[in-house]
């Protein structure tokens, strides 16, 4: 479906792929006896687009939640940029440059597009509460500076015309785009995308694909992607990891995975 994607772009990325930035070793996670993830290991390399696929309930979102500290696995090690991390809160992950979007849109409904994306700059803003109250000197300067950054993101995502609209009033596809914008505003080095194209029509998907590839390309951002659309996944991913019932059943380049009999049986098999 996405075969019209320029092949050169993909090729270019592959060339830039670097060292392992995130290494997950033997991760197990359970909720009150219910196993969500069992002994999963895989790694993510710098600048690559790494996809996680699998049927519903395979534990894909849980995997992302483990990566950015929303869930704490009972077993296993997580190495980020070579450093092992213990229990970590999500905001610490954010401070280390991990940003993400959510499966069910998690925008701040009461706020405008601009404000939503501005929250992505939060970590980079240093002024205190008193300075904000005065809105004078450094606070104003800071606000303006970050506003410029945010405007760049808005331009990049082509959502200039809706910047002052409350996000609750936007159609689904645009909301997904704003959510991506909020994550991008944080200038992450690792971007986790949880089904960014779910529920979109073809045009919207194409737009979203283009944004993802551009982010990867222009900013060199490493991306971990969960997506159901096999065409998209196979087209834009560098490597794919396949989960089923909380277990890893496949890992490798798209073509390898596509031909893995276990994957075909467990994953593609179920969709027939």
């Amino acid at each position, binding site marked *: 479906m996405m075969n019209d994607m320029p092949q050169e772009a993909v090729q270019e990325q592959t060339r830039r792929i670097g060292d392992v930035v995130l290494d997950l070793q033997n991760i197990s996670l359970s909720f009150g006896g219910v196993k969500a993830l069992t002994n999963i290991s895989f790694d993510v390399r710098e600048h690559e687009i790494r996809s996680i696929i699998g049927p519903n309930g395979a534990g894909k979102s849980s995997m992302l939640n483990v990566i950015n500290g929303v869930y704490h696995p009972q077993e296993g090690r997580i190495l980020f940029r070579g450093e092992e991390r213990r229990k970590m809160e999500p*905001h610490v*992950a954010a401070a280390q440059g991990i940003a993400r979007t959510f499966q069910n849109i*998690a925008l*701040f409904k009461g706020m405008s597009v601009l404000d939503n994306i*501005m929250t992505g*700059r*939060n*970590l980079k803003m240093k002024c205190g*509460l008193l300075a904000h109250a005065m809105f004078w000197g450094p606070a104003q300067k800071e606000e*303006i500076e970050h506003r410029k950054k945010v405007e760049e993101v808005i331009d990049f995502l082509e959502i200039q015309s809706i910047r002052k609209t409350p996000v609750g009033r936007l159609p689904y596809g645009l909301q997904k785009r704003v959510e991506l914008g909020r994550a991008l505003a944080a200038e992450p080095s690792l971007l986790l995308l949880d089904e960014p194209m779910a529920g979109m029509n073809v045009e919207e998907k194409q737009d979203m694909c283009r944004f993802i590839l551009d982010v990867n390309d222009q900013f060199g951002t490493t991306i971990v992607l969960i997506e159901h659309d096999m065409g998209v996944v196979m087209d834009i991913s560098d490597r794919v990891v396949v989960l089923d019932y909380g277990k890893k059943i496949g890992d490798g380049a798209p073509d390898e995975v596509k031909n893995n009999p276990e994957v075909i049986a467990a994953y593609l098999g179920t969709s027939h």
Partner: protein
Amino acid sequence: MLYREAGQFKASYIEDQQIFPIRQDKIGFIAILAFFSLVVPMIASEYWLQAILIPVLIFSLAAIGLNILTGYAGQLSLGSAAFMAVGAFGAYNFMLRIDGMPFIAALILGGLCAALVGIAFGLPSLRIKGFYLAVATLAAQFFIVWALVKFPWFSNNSTSGVISAQKVEILGFAFDTPVSKYLLTLAVVAVFALLAKNLVRTTTGRSWMAVRDMDVAAEVIGIRPMRAKLSAFAVSSFYCGVAGALYAYTYLGTVEPEGFSLDLSFRILFMIIIGGVASIMGSFLGAAFIVLLPIFLNVAMHALFAGTMPAGLASNLELIIFGGLIIFFLIVEPHGLARLWQIGKEKLRLWPFPH
């Protein structure tokens, strides 16, 4: 036709980030401020100043405080009156115990006391949410009032726990007439309202709203829920505290801890719900509505039924109408008076060509 933003272009982000980006709003705001600071003192009677305008202003400030916590940061609180009490008794003690304490400093220190207490009682918000938190804030309400009655130090060993506000003097000028007290209150409230407006439209305010709308997502983009919630509690309590100090110094003069009852907390909550959640403007509208409505009902009932209806029944009827109107308002405009204002403004923007 007057309310038109066509032709106003923002050439820089500074211009776009003003409090009132639309010129007419700015003019309107200055006109309102000028009216209330210049015209009202000349025409308002002592009754209007002392019994209506001063309390409306003070409650507006308290409502802004609660709105910061409940409206912007999404933490429901039923203890605002207690934080007002902390502010009042705090300011009183600073004035009493430190010679030559400037009034404004005492006001702010009183607010800071309330902020500290607010942080302490805000700690549970890190673990509990919603109505559980709301009921938990009742602990603050009852405990603080109890402590102020119980420990005579707070009221300078007064036999009855009542404090009597000292004279208010700023730079040698004594604020002892209704007009001067009104102007002082207006000045303090206007300044703090503007500061609040700034707070809620910058990073601090965005992190509050982010925590309110979706706390997990907020944390994931790097907002620390603890810092956001506790800063909301602190700022909110600070505002309530300053309002409480004004309540003692420019409104009642003498206050007792029991005056800051749960009933008052509910009234402040009504103000933000009726006025408009997450709206500074709404805080003012709500405060005016909740202060004026019972008075209006009382006056109206007397005018209509004096002598023909038993007084007890008339008073109960006022209560019934008050309760009924609250429910009616919630049904008709659950987003409060501020939303009506907003809708009015949008209509005006389009008028006379609605399409």
